């Protein structure tokens, strides 16, 4: 696991753009919310550009649409409780994924 | 020796649940509207929200010296932690009310397990009014202050513009208490006493 690619991978642009469709390998993310730490502030839900999260009845995030995640890392970078980990995976042309860098 | 007619209430939960406000309202109902003596004290941690928080109210017809709860006549627990911590500091026949939304392990079978937060949400659409629902329950189940007094106190102390909302929450709590009493009278096995 290369040190560079693991963990929160902030993108240079603050607001993540959807991964460009033209690229061969689309970047995708596996999204984990550490429930014990999450306080349900709603930031990830409100700001995820891909609307990956939905809110449960307690106001907490549910990773409802992981497949839409572009691994832009907005959410894990901004979660005030460090309760989100987004792991980069790569989707090959056929839609299969591998953990990036593994 | 007036130290014996004290009624001691402990409201325990987390910061942000409005327990100190609830205690204040209860005390004001007793002191201002029912003309009794009442002292409200509080205990909270450094957190602005979250963290343990506790309000205590002592009501008496006589002078209240020690202002804190010695052994609660009534304990309200709005968090698991509070419940685990305070359940043993009750009078023998003390009443335990627990918000079953937040608490699932209660080390006694003799408690009112009531989904207070859910009732609040249903009644007002706002979970934050759970504290006032709890007040309704307390008053309904114990009669420690009069209905008129608690209504007046809620009206006076609710943040401007939220009076109606909070009165609705109070009403919901009182109604739930009514229902429980009725069930108990009908002999339903509602666990009602903490040992």
């Amino acid at each position: 696991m290369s040190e560079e690619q693991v963990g929160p991978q902030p993108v240079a642009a603050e607001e993540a753009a959807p991964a460009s469709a033209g690229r061969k390998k689309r970047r995708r993310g596996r999204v984990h919310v550490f429930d014990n730490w999450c306080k349900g502030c709603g930031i990830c839900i409100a700001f995820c550009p891909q609307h990956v999260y939905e809110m449960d009845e307690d106001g907490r995030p549910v990773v409802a649409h992981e497949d839409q995640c572009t691994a832009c890392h907005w959410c894990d970078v901004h979660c005030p409780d460090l309760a989100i980990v987004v792991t980069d995976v790569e989707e090959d042309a056929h839609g299969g994924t591998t953990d990036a860098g593994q | 020796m007036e130290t014996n007619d004290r009624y001691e209430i402990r409201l325990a939960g987390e910061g942000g649940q409005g327990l100190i406000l609830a205690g204040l309202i209860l005390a004001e109902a007793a002191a201002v509207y029912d003309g009794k003596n009442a002292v409200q004290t509080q205990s909270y941690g450094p957190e602005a929200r979250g963290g343990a928080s506790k309000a205590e109210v002592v009501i008496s017809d006589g002078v209240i010296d020690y202002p804190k709860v010695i052994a609660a006549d009534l304990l309200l627990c709005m968090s698991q932690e509070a419940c685990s911590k305070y359940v043993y500091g009750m009078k023998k026949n003390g009443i335990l009310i627990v918000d079953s939304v937040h608490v699932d392990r209660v080390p006694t079978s003799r408690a009112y397990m009531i989904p207070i937060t859910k009732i609040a949400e249903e009644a007002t659409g706002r979970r934050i009014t759970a504290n006032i629902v709890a007040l309704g329950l307390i008053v309904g189940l114990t009669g420690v202050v009069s209905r008129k007094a608690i209504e007046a106190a809620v009206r006076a102390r609710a943040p401007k513009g939220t009076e109606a909302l909070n009165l609705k929450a109070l009403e919901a709590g009182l109604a739930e208490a009514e229902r429980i009493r009725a069930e108990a009278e009908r002999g339903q096995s509602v666990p009602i006493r903490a040992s």
Partner: protein
Amino acid sequence: MAARLMQGNEACVEGALAAGCRFFAGYPITPSSEIAELLSRRLPQVGGYFIQMEDEIASIAAVIGASVGGVKAMTATSGPGFSLMQENIGYAAMAEIPCVIVNVQRTGPSTGLPTKPAQGDVMQARWGTHGDHPIIVLSPSSVMETFLLTVRAFNLSEKYRSPVILLMDEVVGHMRERVELPPPESLEITNRVAAHVPPEWYFPFEDPSTDVPPLAPFGEGYRYHITGLFHDRAGFPTERVDEIDAWIARAFGRIEQHRQDIISYEEDVPAGSRVLVVAYGATARSARHAVKLARAKRYKVGFLKLETIWPFPEEATERLARQCKRVIVPEMNLGQLALEVERVVGRQKVRRVNLANGEMITPQQILAAIEEK
């Protein structure tokens, strides 16, 4: 006035306003912040002045400055801020500037337990600044008493030209209680004595007719000098031993000679009492509760509740302790005022009951001490 449910900190604010306080400078700190918050709203309503300063050192300085301008002034803080104020409290004592410092005690030392009660600053209130200095310290045990002692704090401060410390604690400060405030006109309010001689004859630090010379406000024709150095009667620095001794004699004498007026307490010591409980602040409530429990058990117990803690009520303590075998001093600290009680009544007699972990002492703990032996 109608009954109200009032918080201790709020009662302090009401007391201050009733006493004529029109200036507050402070820096927020738990558990005193409500005092500042309430005054920030209330003072402008009565044409008074509120300012939040950059720290507690500046706060007490501004309070002294305002008082020199002729306005009754106060600040409020808790332990950490009180520690920072010490240098300038000494200045107020040296320059004989009236002002009230409220310390709502929390558990220390250091940041300690910011939201929990204590009575750990009792000795500090007396000895916190360097050098010997006269001081008055009052400590309330209820919301009503907070109101009354705040008024008294201002009265004593203005009357004796001395800083007065109101030593509250988190329990009393945050407690809400039923109170009926006395009508304003029923309160006795003391204002500082106006200078009564023409400016040429005026000496701010000596007046032949009284041990508390009038303090003329700045800007009203009496141009004089104030300093934290030892000074002569005109206020100018001096190193002359006779002038310094004169200042010491007068500054301490005016407190000493008016002990009767300054010291207040409540005694409930039936003849034949064998045990005396001496308490103050929130702990006095536990103590009174315990005394009642003990009496119900037929113990012969007397109770002395101190309102003035400095100057220490030596005479009362000694008088009431004389007949008793034992004196119990419960405090939310590790034994502070107990040292004075021991000094006055002999330490063999004294049983301390202490707790400094953020909890109140319970009546049961005091009762246990009463029942001992």
